[in-house]
């Protein structure tokens, strides 16, 4: 079926996210993949999660509790 739908979570396109653009993806059930209307990204859920993790890595203090101000 050609009609893209929202997936189980509203995954944003991880490539657009790298440019800090929040772009919700559509999900193609037949191919079990998400795709972006803006940048041509395609990938399954694992690929999206892998790239999202890469995005997080710029925040080196994301798990650090900082109290010295």
């Amino acid at each position: 079926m050609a009609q893209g739908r929202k997936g189980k979570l509203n995954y944003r396109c991880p490539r657009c996210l790298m440019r800090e653009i929040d772009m919700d993806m559509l999900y193609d059930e037949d191919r079990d993949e998400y795709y972006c209307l803006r940048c041509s990204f395609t990938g399954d859920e694992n690929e999206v999660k892998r790239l999202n993790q890469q995005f997080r890595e710029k925040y080196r203090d994301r798990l650090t509790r900082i109290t010295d101000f």
Partner: protein
Amino acid sequence: MAKFYVNIVHRPEMVPEYIQKEAEQGRVEDLTRASVLQESLDIFRTQQQIAHDNGLRTTIQMTYASLFNEEAVAIAKEHHLLYGDEIGLTFLGIQCKEFREKFHSRELAIWLFSMEDKRRIVDELFSKFEQVFGFLPTSTGSYYMDAELVNYIKERYPMVKAAVATCWEEGPKAYWNANNSWYTLLDGGPWNPWIPSKRNIHCIASDEDDDIGIVAIPHLSRDLMAVFDGPGSYYGTHPQNILRGMVYEGDQLPYFKNIVDQYRAMHKYNRGYAYNMMYVGPGWMSKGGRWEADYALLLKSYQDGMAYYGELKRRGELEDLTMSEFADVYRQGRPYTRPECTLWKDILYGSRRQMFWYADPWMRFCLDMNQGGALVDLRPYAARLVRPCGVGTKANQDASYPFLVQSLYRAGFFTHYAGEGAVKSCKIGYHGEQVDLCTCRTQASFSEEGDARVVTLDPVTIAFETVTIRVQSVFRLREGSGEIEITRRILESSDPAAEFSINEYLTGCYGTTEYPEDLTGVRLSLIDGGQTDTIDYAYRSRELERAAVDRVQAVLPQVDTLVEMRPDGPAAGYLREGFSFSPMFTLGIQKTIQSKGELRTWLKVAKAS
């Protein structure tokens, strides 16, 4: 003793932007869909309960839609009685069946209506509120409240004393972040509460005559470094914003507490006062999940955030006030000239970067210690620009306050191949070599000397081919002066007899976005006693210099602003006109000094007319 005030605001938004958008997937729009209304109300109830369970009071900002919902009204009344929550009125969430029938518009942003419509909507909302509750609200708000709108509200409803009036630096960056579809173009305001000018809501009122009559509160407390270079809706006291920014692992987001604690520490810069604001609309806690986070995480992040505020309150380190209560406290004993300052440090990227933010009735500016204390943002509040927004105005959607310097929108130190970017810094030269302090990363400390706030930068070492020097920059801000005093001092030199040129400069332009504006009509002047040399900007790359100047200045009629630099003694001055590929102007003051010598200059902005 330090005081940390917190406002927690909730709104029963019956048709939240995000939930409605999700509900629309594969369906036609229906503003009365029962499932959306019920979910939104459930979320509002949950948020209220989380606050109350943590011993915190809230300000309930009723939306227009919620004034037609008996359950929402009943909850508000009950919580006002039981917990002392304030019932206010917001201009967010106006879209509902009743609004469509009355105003025949799909517009959702109050500041973007025509002035005539703004008046009609204000009157309708306040009158409906009074009809429902039997009294008029004393607090209101939206993502943005323009001065013309607030002036009208104060004229008709003088009891209003507080309003959520801007989102800090929610401008072009928010627009890009939302795939160029989120029209909150509101850059240029203060990051903490302020008393706005009657002429422009972004500007801090200079005196009683200029006082608009409310205390303005920014929508959320934002990360003053991350949001300068990133989307506002990733980094602030809004747990779901943090999830959106992916600043978490698993279900842990210590960054929320780090922001709160950095805001708490602002009492060191602001005479013992610090502030936080948390305002999460129900659309952010959708049962269907949002931003890759399921409902369980959305809920937990909110619970954890509120629990931290609750813990601080129990420890006696936080005072939870309603918006109107806060407005009263804020005004107590506060002179109009008192600045808001903050030496913000990176709590996200693991660098040691610091930025110093300052706002008073004359200007807002930012110094970046990563660039040797370069001034990277400058907004001339002294111009008090009357700049109405909304349908029928010249600005229309662009409600930002113009900058003279914005190093991210207009390049700053680093440009590609040609030209110059907007920044204020200093260049030090020796025998044909030149080093810009922008390249000398450093740290700063803050102190007060009487009525002056002082930012002292750690000395930096500059190694020329045959001589090495240590240079220190000090910024002194005397309250009420409307000027920045900047001292560049050579503390040491490996050759005490060596002479160095020291060149304090400002490269500026004007605008509200990253795109250039026409500089035709800008007048640059070198002034020495009765002698004045001028360049009327025409993109011709002209330069002028005088061996001695009293001051150098630029007048920008487009933003009714004069920007001026003056030295404390004999010094040369120069002007530089740009060209189309580098639409900037440069003002400079320079002199030759030896070790232990210094150049002291003052930067001032004023209304040109």
